[in-house]
């Protein structure tokens, strides 16, 4: 009797099965990683201390109407100009910390400064800036995001500038390396303390530093 060979399992349809699985996964899964602007809402209304009144000159007022037009500090501007204006306001100039009146044309409506202790830099003058964003119910979401984006960009550019000047690297780099060493963590804290992101929006009539 001839030796009978065990016949091999036919693997020809293996590819078909694998393709089937592949197509199933292609259809049922998504690849998109979610990206976006991360913000923190202020705590519920009852938790907020009543009426923190800020001086008008410390507030950078942004109004957006239902036609997506911007009114910034009383001027009608385009959204492309917003970043520069916001930067100018947030940074302003600490060498005139007490000039308060509007009559001084060279220094109109810029925020006050306060001596504060900053981690790495020691005592220094920190602006009391707050950005107040008020939008109409008819404002489009697209416009709202544009404004938010410009404000975040303004803060980021200032932080980068300061970080470059003091530590020789950008704030983005510092943020990335913050987990690795204590000194970098301190540097991050210092820069955040000099330019804290204060964007107030939830209850526009009651402006309070949200951070």
């Amino acid at each position, binding site marked *: 009797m001839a030796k009978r060979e065990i016949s091999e399992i036919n693997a020809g349809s293996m590819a078909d099965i694998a393709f089937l699985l592949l197509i199933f996964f292609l259809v049922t899964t998504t690849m998109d990683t*979610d990206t976006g602007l991360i913000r923190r809402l202020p705590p519920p209304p009852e938790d907020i201390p009543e009426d923190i009144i800020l001086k008008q000159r410390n507030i950078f007022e942004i109004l957006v109407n239902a036609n997506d037009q911007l009114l910034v500090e009383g001027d009608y501007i*385009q959204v492309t100009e917003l970043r520069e204006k916001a930067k100018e306001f947030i940074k302003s100039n600490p060498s005139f910390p007490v000039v308060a009146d509007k009559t001084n044309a060279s220094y109109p409506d810029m925020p006050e400064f306060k001596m504060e202790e900053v981690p790495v830099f020691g005592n220094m003058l920190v602006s009391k800036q707050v950005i107040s964003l008020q939008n109409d119910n008819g404002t489009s979401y697209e416009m709202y995001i544009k404004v938010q984006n410009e404000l975040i960009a303004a803060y980021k550019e200032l932080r980068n500038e300061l970080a470059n000047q003091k530590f020789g690297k950008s704030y983005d780099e510092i943020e990335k390396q913050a987990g690795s060493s204590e000194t970098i963590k301190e540097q991050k804290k210092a820069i955040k303390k000099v330019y804290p992101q204060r964007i107030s929006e939830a209850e526009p009539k009651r402006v309070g530093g949200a951070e």
Partner: protein
Amino acid sequence: MSKFRKKGKKGQPAVNTAALPDIVFMLLFFFMVTTVMRETSLKVINVTPKATEVSKLERKSLVSYIYIGKPIKALQSAFGTAPRIQLNDAFKTKEDLFQFVEMERDERDEVERNMITWSLKVDQKTKMGIVTDVKQELRKANALKINYSTKKTDKILD
């Protein structure tokens, strides 16, 4: 030389496809690893706006989504064209948000409940009224860490 040659003997040998399953499996594993299951089917038109300063959301398991926008074409005859809120797979009103937040919290481990990011996926044509309402509801429910879902772009065109 015979008169009747067997067919096929002279032609090129067939391409060996033995490795084909391996290749396909490789592709399959790649997709299994890099993608996640689609959780909801969108019932609203959802084109998120573009922004330059976006950051990536880490830890997908700690993100809950709230969709806002017009109902999709197929549902417009039943639901109209006014923007609506979609939670999980159904249209909801802003009054349902509180419960939604609680339910999403219950699904997570206790230690992670306060680390949930609420990602607002809002269509760019939506008006701010409904978005503000949603934000106020989230504040009431103490869900404060939010994310305005946007696509990354290099330059914002006006």
